[in-house]
């Protein structure tokens, strides 16, 4: 089947589309590390949607492209190379596929079109103050009352909750069973009475994440995905699907290219010759690592397409590329730090220095720290790898 696909022609088609159809002002946001918000994402999703490319990872029957894994990978790669925003993932990559796999017919009709067109914006309510790496210990409780659940508890680190319409949420529906078994997945509208959202200010000064308080929020039972008590399985399905996220090294390589240009620009003078050489060497080491990861990413995609097990590749990719991304961000910081780090304060997010030329490199460095924390922290990945390597 896949032998019939001309991947080179496909790549060229995607590139032509990206270059002609993605508005320059949107690409500029990506290229200059400005904040990607719903305001930026939505028009781009709309363009993709109208072209029939709204959901590269979905089956055709639900409005997806029906592309194979390699095509999807090429699409992601070319988008990164052209500075197009990566598609907003919470609907398209996370809850959408779960609804497609486990949702009821009504849920599919109600939720999939809004995700596809970008009309509905989703966020992920998993983490809680007491449940991070050990997510299964979550305590936000949903008590059944007739056709409704009454939800009581708190989520935290909820990215985009402040601009989202819906939160797919893991809640505890039973305290009896093993802790993984008492969890259910609810789709909760964020305008429901009893929900309050409070911003969390992160070290980079931007508003990414929130605390979400749920005070006796009434959610129709019809908004539960799949079976009661099976939420953990659906959550894992979602993570499984995202396991190849680390295979797309293109954004990191693009970031590295931009950093190399920064060095040439910032450190072009004779007095900075040695400094530039030192930083270029660090960048080169990072590039070597990223190229290794890129080769492994291709191996992973081939494995999936040929039905072979992925083994530890996803953990290796996540662990490796997250650290390398941070190294690149450190090189950029070292290039501009003397000039810009002292002018960067969290309170400056919208303040006088927010527009200082190049200040985004400091912000980017600060924010890059999260890469080894979320999506399975480095330590958790190492536990996973070691368990497999040692056989227990």
């Amino acid at each position: 089947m896949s032998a019939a696909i001309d991947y080179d022609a496909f790549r060229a088609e995607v590139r032509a589309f990206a270059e002609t159809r993605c508005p320059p002002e949107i690409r500029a946001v990506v290229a200059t590390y400005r904040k990607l918000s719903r305001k930026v994402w939505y028009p781009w999703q709309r363009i993709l949607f109208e072209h029939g490319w709204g959901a590269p990872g979905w089956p055709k029957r639900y409005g997806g492209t029906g592309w194979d894994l390699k095509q999807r990978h090429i699409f992601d790669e070319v988008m990164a190379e052209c500075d197009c925003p990566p598609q907003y993932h919470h609907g398209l990559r996370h809850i959408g596929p779960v609804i497609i796999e486990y949702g009821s017919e009504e849920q599919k009709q109600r939720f999939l079109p809004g995700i596809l067109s970008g009309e509905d914006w989703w966020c992920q309510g998993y983490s809680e103050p007491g449940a991070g790496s050990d997510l299964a210990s979550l305590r936000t409780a949903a008590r059944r009352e007739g056709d409704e659940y009454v939800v009581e508890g708190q989520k935290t680190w909820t990215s985009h909750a402040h601009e989202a319409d819906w939160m797919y949420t893991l809640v505890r529906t039973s305290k009896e069973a093993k802790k993984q078994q008492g969890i259910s997945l609810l789709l909760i509208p964020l305008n429901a009475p009893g929900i309050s959202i409070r911003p969390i200010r992160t070290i980079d000064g931007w508003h990414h994440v929130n605390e979400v308080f749920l005070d006796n929020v009434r959610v129709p039972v019809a908004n539960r995905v799949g079976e009661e008590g099976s939420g953990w399985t659906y959550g894992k399905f979602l993570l499984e699907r995202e396991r190849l996220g680390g295979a797309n090294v293109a954004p990191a390589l693009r970031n590295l290219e931009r950093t190399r240009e920064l060095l040439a620009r910032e450190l072009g003078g004779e007095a900075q010759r040695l400094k530039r050489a030192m930083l270029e060497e660090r960048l080169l080491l990072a590039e070597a690592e990223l190229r290794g990861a890129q080769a492994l990413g291709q191996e992973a995609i081939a494995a999936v397409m040929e039905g072979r097990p992925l083994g530890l590749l996803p953990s290796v990719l996540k662990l490796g590329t997250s650290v390398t991304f941070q190294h690149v961000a450190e090189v950029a910081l070292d290039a501009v730090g003397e000039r810009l780090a002292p002018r960067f304060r969290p309170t400056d997010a919208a303040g006088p220095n927010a527009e200082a030329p190049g200040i985004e490199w400091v912000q980017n460095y600060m924010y890059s720290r999260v890469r080894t924390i979320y999506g399975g922290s480095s330590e958790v990945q190492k536990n996973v790898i070691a368990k497999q390597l040692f056989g227990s």
Partner: protein
Amino acid sequence: MPFTATPIVGGDAFDQACRIGQEADRQLALIDDPAGQLACLRRHWDSLAGLGWLAVAMPEEAGGAGGTLSDLAALTGGAGRGGLPLPIAAACGVIPYLLADQPALLPGMAEGQHRIAFIPADAAVDEAADVPQLTPDGKLTGAVVGIESPPDPTHLLLVLGGAEPVLLLLPAGIPGISARHTLRIDGRPAADWRFTGLAVEPGWILGRGEAVARRAAEARDLGALLTCVEAVSAAGALLEQTIDYLLNRVQFGVPLASHQALRHRVAEMYVEYENLRGLVLQALRAAGAGEGMPWRDIAFAKLRLGEAGRFIAQSSIQCHGGMGMTEALPAIRLARRIMMAEFEFGDRTFHAQRLLDAARRAA
């Protein structure tokens, strides 16, 4: 089931090379004196010549097996896993590549009687004045050090740099050449060579000019690639053996493998190993697919070998505690080999410089 490494190129040749490597390593560990070790290496050299290893990449017209890069990778990979302290990359790959247009020499090489040490133009010297060169009246002078070699070398293959590069094949044991033979820290034979005004006979000169420099650079990249294959393979075995050691060594009443600090160190070794494996595999594919050597892929791989290889070797030594400081375990002999591999066919700074130069030129 604990981890077992997958070969980059597996198969019978890989298994055979691995078996011979392990056997040689075992035997060598029981011999104390260098002369006895050298004799043992010579026996293994003769037997692998008998098995046809040295002819693997030689053209069929010249009596070789006409094998591909993949066949070479199987051999070097197997030898790396087994810890065979012989210069397989040079003997099976680099030197036949440089002498491919010398059909008269190939049979002697294939059978193992011509045992050639290769001295590249940028071979190490103690003093800048020692760089080998031809005087205007055709005499060879200079002194190179730490040249990896087969046991009892019979010939020297030299590339002389300078305005007009020269490729030169000389008999090793003649007046005007003196040698000091040693065994390196990874157990491989090596020698320092001094040339004291040796009159070069016209028949020794195999080539001159830009073509020699180009071919020598390609040969170096081939050597770097095969060395990477060998080292990745050694690193896979080293990981296995480190894991095995940690599972069996008990301290504080529990196996060391139960301590998260060590488990995480091993996980880091694995990530480095995988990343390096990915790069080497990609370079190997690129080299097999196209014309000429994909120098950029190879340079990235060799650069990473410097970084990742050393990290893996050092971590393994650390995980073994005091035993890591001894020669007693095969694991530590592998670690030493991986550390040495960095310095063959261009060390990490050499390959980094090439890549940095190219990036600057592109900018």
